[in-house]
């Protein structure tokens, strides 16, 4: 299946939900949908275009919004579904009901960006330690790391 | 004078000192054979060809810090290694190592010593189970239960296999069995099947690959020995080594013929035969992968037990028709 065919098929499947489509390189298709339509769109792509393999979810801190990219792979290249959510209210629907394998990536997204994934089956921290302070989300652009003061046990102050 | 002689028997030969030296030598032999089969060098540094390595390991462990877990049953935890070692050393006294004249019974050779020896060899297994249980560590408890589960598998085939040559010889005394086969070496061929079954069972009793399930490192860390360290671990390791020598001695006495030729020749025969048995055990260790505990029990009852019964049948037929 060529990229153009893929885009046509996606247009037919998603209809009005598809905001934008692009084909920047060979075998790379980018589709943009609204966060509210995300679950329905992915379901349509899964059944209609055989996109069951979610490679990963990328979060990007893009100024006023968080861009969330769902990378899919199939036997003829890859499709990326893009959605943006405002920084003020970073809520995203969980897609685990459609693609169960997304759970670890959604947990990672919560850890790293502080995006709240609604209805996530397992909301615990994935990478950050249990005692990680509230409101620290490392991959946000305004977060910087300060090395804690080194204390040598039993050493001089 | 008799008291001094008995004391010498107990402490020097074939008691504590000899068994310590010989069992560490057997461990070295086993490790070397295993290593060479795996394309490795094995121990090389301590002594010529690393022959003193097990002794060095033993003393190194003796010098290590000895930790008793807070929640363990402390008295049991501390007593078990000593009791275990004592049991296998006692078992070793019953081996027909230097007393090869069938005649008047002594404290270490009497009618029925074969049975006593087999039961003394069963005790270390129970001690390992108790050791795991007394440690109150999750890994130790799993290891302990695995020890017992395996025991149910291999114990019956082992008894059947070891007792059938005794039936053929018509005696429950190791020295008499050995003497019987010394006079009729061709009858040893009758027991080959039993020898194979007993070898597998002894491998399981010694908890070596493919039966190293109770202390499978990659599954349950140290298994029964997880909480043991220092002196207690050293004693347990020595116990395993002596157990290996005793088991090999038992198999060689029962399946590999008599002990003729006086003290010196008899001793050389003993060494060669036990090393041969240990070589076979090492070979099995190098050639197989670890089984699962359910597979061991299934294998023991599907194959080992029927084969042992078949051996018994052969012995009965031979005894009734040929002899």
């Amino acid at each position: 299946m060529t990229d153009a065919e893929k885009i046509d098929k996606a247009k037919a499947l998603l209809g009005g939900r598809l905001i934008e489509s692009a084909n920047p390189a060979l075998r790379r298709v980018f589709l943009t949908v609204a966060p509210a339509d995300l679950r329905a769109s992915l379901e349509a792509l899964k059944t209609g275009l055989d996109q069951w393999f979610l490679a990963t979810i990328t979060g990007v801190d893009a100024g006023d919004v968080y861009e969330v990219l769902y990378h899919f792979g199939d036997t003829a290249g890859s499709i990326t579904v893009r959605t943006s959510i405002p920084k003020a209210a970073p809520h995203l629907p969980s897609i685990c009901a459609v693609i169960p394998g997304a759970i670890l990536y959604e947990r990672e997204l919560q850890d790293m960006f502080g995006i709240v994934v609604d209805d996530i089956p397992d909301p615990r921290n994935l990478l950050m330690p249990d005692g990680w302070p509230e409101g620290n989300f490392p991959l946000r652009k305004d977060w910087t790391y300060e090395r804690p003061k080194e204390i040598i046990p039993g050493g001089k102050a | 004078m008799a008291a001094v002689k008995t004391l010498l028997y107990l402490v020097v030969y074939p008691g504590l000192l000899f068994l310590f030296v010989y069992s560490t030598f057997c461990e070295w032999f086993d490790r070397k054979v295993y290593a060479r089969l795996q394309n490795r060098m094995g121990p090389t540094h301590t002594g010529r060809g690393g022959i003193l390595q097990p002794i060095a390991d033993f003393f190194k462990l003796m010098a290590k810090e000895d930790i008793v877990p807070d929640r363990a049953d402390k008295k049991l935890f501390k007593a078990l290694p000593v009791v275990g070692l004592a049991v296998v050393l006692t078992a070793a006294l019953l081996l027909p190592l230097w007393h090869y004249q069938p005649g008047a019974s002594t404290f270490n050779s009497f009618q029925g010593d074969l049975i006593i020896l087999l039961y003394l060899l069963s005790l270390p297994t129970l001690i390992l189970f108790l050791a795991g249980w007394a440690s109150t560590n999750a890994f130790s408890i799993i290891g302990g239960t695995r020890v017992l589960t395996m025991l149910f598998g291999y114990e019956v085939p082992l008894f059947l296999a070891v007792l059938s040559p005794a039936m053929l010889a018509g005696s429950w005394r190791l020295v008499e069995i050995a003497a019987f086969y010394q006079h009729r070496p061709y009858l040893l061929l009758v027991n080959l099947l039993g020898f194979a079954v007993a070898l597998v069972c002894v491998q399981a009793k010694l908890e070596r690959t493919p039966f190293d399930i109770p202390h499978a490192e990659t599954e349950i860390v140290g298994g029964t020995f997880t909480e043991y360290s220092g002196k207690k671990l050293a004693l347990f390791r020595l116990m395993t080594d002596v157990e290996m020598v005793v088991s090999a001695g038992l198999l060689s006495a029962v399946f590999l013929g008599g002990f003729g030729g006086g003290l010196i020749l008899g001793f050389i025969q003993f060494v060669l035969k036990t090393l041969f048995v240990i070589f076979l055990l090492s070979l099995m260790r190098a050639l197989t992968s670890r089984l699962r505990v359910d597979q061991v029990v299934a294998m023991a009852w599907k194959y080992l037990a029927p084969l042992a019964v078949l051996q018994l049948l052969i012995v009965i037929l031979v005894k009734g028709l040929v002899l």
Partner: protein
Amino acid sequence: MKFQIPIGPQHPALKEPISLRMTVEGEVIKDADLRLGYNHRGVEKLAESKSWIQNIYLTERICGICSHSHATCFVQGAEKLLEIEAPRRGVYLRYLVSELERVHSHLLWLGVAGHEAGFDSFFMYTWRDREVVMDILEMISGNRVHYAINTLGGVRRDLDEAQKAKILDGLKILKARSEYYLKIGAGEPTFVGRLAGVGMLSRQQAMDLCTVGPVARASGIARDVRKDDPHAFYDEVEFDVATADTCDVLGRAVVRIKELFESYKIIEFVIRNLPDGPIAVKAPRRAKPGEVVSRYEAPRGENIHYIKSNGSDKPERLKVRAPTLANYAATIEMLRHGFIADIPLIFAAIDPCICCAERTAELVDARTGEERIVRFADLRRLAASRQAHSNKRNVAWPL
């Protein structure tokens, strides 16, 4: 009686810290849980403050076994953003190292699987033969673990005729040995008894949980980035995607051994068809603004990097998804309702990444304090002469 046993963060079966919490009832696992983060190093955040060229070396250090796969995946994407194309010879050499890395990684895995199953002889044999491919890699790149052969716009070291011949010689040994391992891996009764039927993952489950690499292929999903999204020369070379439909650990082992043979084919193709010409082009310092999704078939499965550039000399965002992460969700599923004895095997069957140590080549003379580089052959000779004198006391170390 139900209780929880902790596998990790420190456990003999694990080569890197991760915590598997098993709820067991006797020998049977009732529930499994996974806790990550013991080894989180913040590479994605760090990458945003490093230049394009620095990031090659950073990504190379994500993994100690498949170091080349992360670096290549990054370079592949970065070259698109920098609008350069590596010359043919450079591309061939880059993916030659890729395939050699796959060989060494799979041989390593076979050994680890043997060790986890308590089959240490198998472990010793595979790791001995792995040295052949490690030596080849060291000859090509100068390093055993972090090859550092990638650069923006090509590779850093060339290959001459003598080296080509050596690689082909090494391949002959490896092929013969791999046949033997296929025979043992699929024939030795105790080993097969431990692997067959363990860690079942049906085709549907593998699809739902988005598994990658040999785990997916052993469940009958013929996905391979080299076939589906052919980069470099992979659309020219003939190779098959190895699959199995047993859905268990045995299938994963067989898939990996079969992949070895496919890799040997590709390596031979590269050596025989290596084009002439330069090995690298000069790369600009800044990239054009844009984004790229870079996919690469690492030994453990699909490796995907998302790189976003804002026009500066540093990436705006680098997202790395290592193949192991994609398989964790499936691992939990596989562990459920298994036996305790199968934990290390099932976990090892996804081939979790492990770090390797490097070999030191500098010796310090104890008497003079003089440092010098000693070749491996000399070291061996020294060791042999030491061995010959080992019975004499206070023998002088013949350095």
